[in-house]
């Protein structure tokens, strides 16, 4: 992950994008505080979901792959405990990854571009403290978005005993949803798919914060995660543990 940040930063700083480009990339050259935002925003489209898919798939299916699942399940531990602790472990992986991106990005941005009060998308300027607060909020929102992918991977790994299959399936589902979101024909399902709220975090950088799309995103994320966890639990509680 640290390597990826450096790479992402290298790319973004060597290409001071004019005008549009990915959100916040253009702003970086004026203010290093945007580096973590731009980095996490860019990563949240593909790399972070990939990490989340792997993190969500490995703890459960990897255990089955190694044959240690039956060793655990022969111990007096509840199945719910096993399932949800695996979910927790997956979240931990992703949080650590995101923290590395955020802190690394902030440090690099500070060293290269310096940190200044931050200009919001609405044109006004907010202080550094308030700006960092927004950045933390943005990271939280993206983490919650990633919970969807983690839960998706956990769900798939209750169906298969191969961690690679689980991770790839979860990733494929994620990509398919993302692609479908790109076609106007499938606009009807857009409000219900968690993948269509990728940019909701940008609303945190308006002044005042534009909560409406964020609330919508959180609602969809919450329902998605709850649904996936419920289905995972229903499958796992009756699953035949053979390995």
């Amino acid at each position, binding site marked *: 992950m640290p390597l990826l940040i450096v790479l992402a930063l290298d790319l973004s700083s060597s290409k001071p994008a004019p005008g549009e480009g990915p959100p916040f990339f253009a702003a970086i050259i004026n203010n290093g505080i945007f580096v973590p935002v731009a980095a996490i925003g860019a990563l949240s489209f593909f790399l972070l979901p990939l990490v989340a898919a792997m993190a969500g798939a490995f703890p459960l299916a990897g255990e089955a792959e*190694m*044959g*240690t699942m*039956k*060793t*655990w*399940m*022969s*111990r*007096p*531990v*509840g199945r719910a405990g096993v399932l949800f602790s695996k979910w927790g472990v997956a979240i931990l992986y992703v949080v650590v990854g995101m923290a590395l991106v955020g802190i690394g990005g902030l440090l690099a941005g500070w060293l290269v571009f310096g940190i200044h009060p931050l200009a919001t998308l609405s044109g006004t300027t907010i202080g550094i403290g308030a700006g960092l607060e927004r950045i933390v909020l943005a990271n939280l929102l993206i983490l919650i978005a990633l919970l969807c992918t983690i839960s998706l991977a956990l769900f798939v790994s209750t169906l298969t005993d191969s961690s690679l299959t689980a991770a790839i399936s979860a990733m494929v589902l994620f990509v398919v949803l993302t692609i479908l979101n790109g076609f106007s024909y499938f606009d009807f399902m857009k409000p219900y798919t968690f993948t269509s709220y990728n940019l909701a975090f940008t609303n945190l950088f308006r002044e005042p914060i534009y909560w409406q799309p964020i609330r919508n995103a959180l609602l969809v994320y919450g329902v998605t995660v709850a649904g996936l966890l419920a289905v995972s639990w229903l499958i796992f509680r*009756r699953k*035949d*543990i*053979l*390995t």
Partner: protein
Amino acid sequence: MADHKQPPASTPPGVCRGRLAEESAGGADSPAPRACDDRPVVLSTHGLTKRFGKLVAVDHLDLAVCRGDVFGFLGPNGAGKTTTIRMIFGLIFPTSGYAEVAGHRVPGERVAALRHLGGFVEVPAFYPNMSARRNLRLIGSAGGDASEGRITEVLDTVGLLTRGDSRVGGYSHGMKQRLGIANALLNSPDVIILDEPTSGLDPQGMKDVRELVRELGKVGTTVFLSSHLLHEIEQVCNRAVIINRGRTVVEGPVATLRPRDEAVKVMTGDQQKAFETARALFGAQGVSWDEGYLVVRAGDEGVPELVRRLVADGVAVRAVVPAVEQGLEEFFLGLTQSSDADGGRGEPAGRRARQPCAAWAASSSRSSFNGAPTSAGRVCWPCRC
């Protein structure tokens, strides 16, 4: 030997106590078979059944293991041993029926039951990149506590103390098997279930594991040991059940599981004359040939008489050896093959169970066979009577 005509349920001393499936078979709510006398039943299954699609891997299995038993769970490949053990551990769910460990039902009260249970299913699995000690610490702490002292103790018990700090990934098959046993012992459970613990071990490893199991039995630990080797079960167990195609074929104290083979192989200076002598004594049924040896089903009391007679007739007796090996294999094969041959699972239970007996009797044509239908319509299994 005379056939026993009494129903075995009365079990007078010295009479066959090996029991056939029907005597203990019952519905899902049948009480545990009363096999323990005054000892409590610590592990039992009640009408335990598992289907995989059309295949019935375990078929209304009723077992009762008493405290302090070293219980043999015997059957050929695919008999349903592992499937049964998985259900006892709550790893898979029975189609019907349930298991009970120390009063807790599985799957209903799985976690409570597992507090009294240790062991492994098939090949024990650990984290290959961690040391044995770390594995035990990690796994032992799940739902129990594993002190360093206890870890050292169990590693010592299985003879892994010197290798306890090396990677499990570098362990040989036998060492992993031992580590599996160490893990089973770790939380001092009431019942230990070992699924073919000697499979894939070299003779020394087998001997070690068997000795270990015997030691466990001596200190009063209840052990449930699956195997497909009858002689292994005979060496270490006090009670056993033989299953085939998910069904009980025969169960009881190990001594009663198979007939004591009264047959002896005789080698003399004049085999033809000896044959005449033996036939005069035991009848044509009691005498046969095996690679130049005369096989005489003489019975315990018959052997001295036979030798006396041979000597009196001037036949030089070179060797009299028990024909036990052959009897064992024959017996086990006879049991499992004939319960295979019946195939039809819908047949009345009585007929199905009588068949192995008859087939075995026919194939071995031994005069000492005492597995005759009892007055209750059941079969008293050939045994030490």
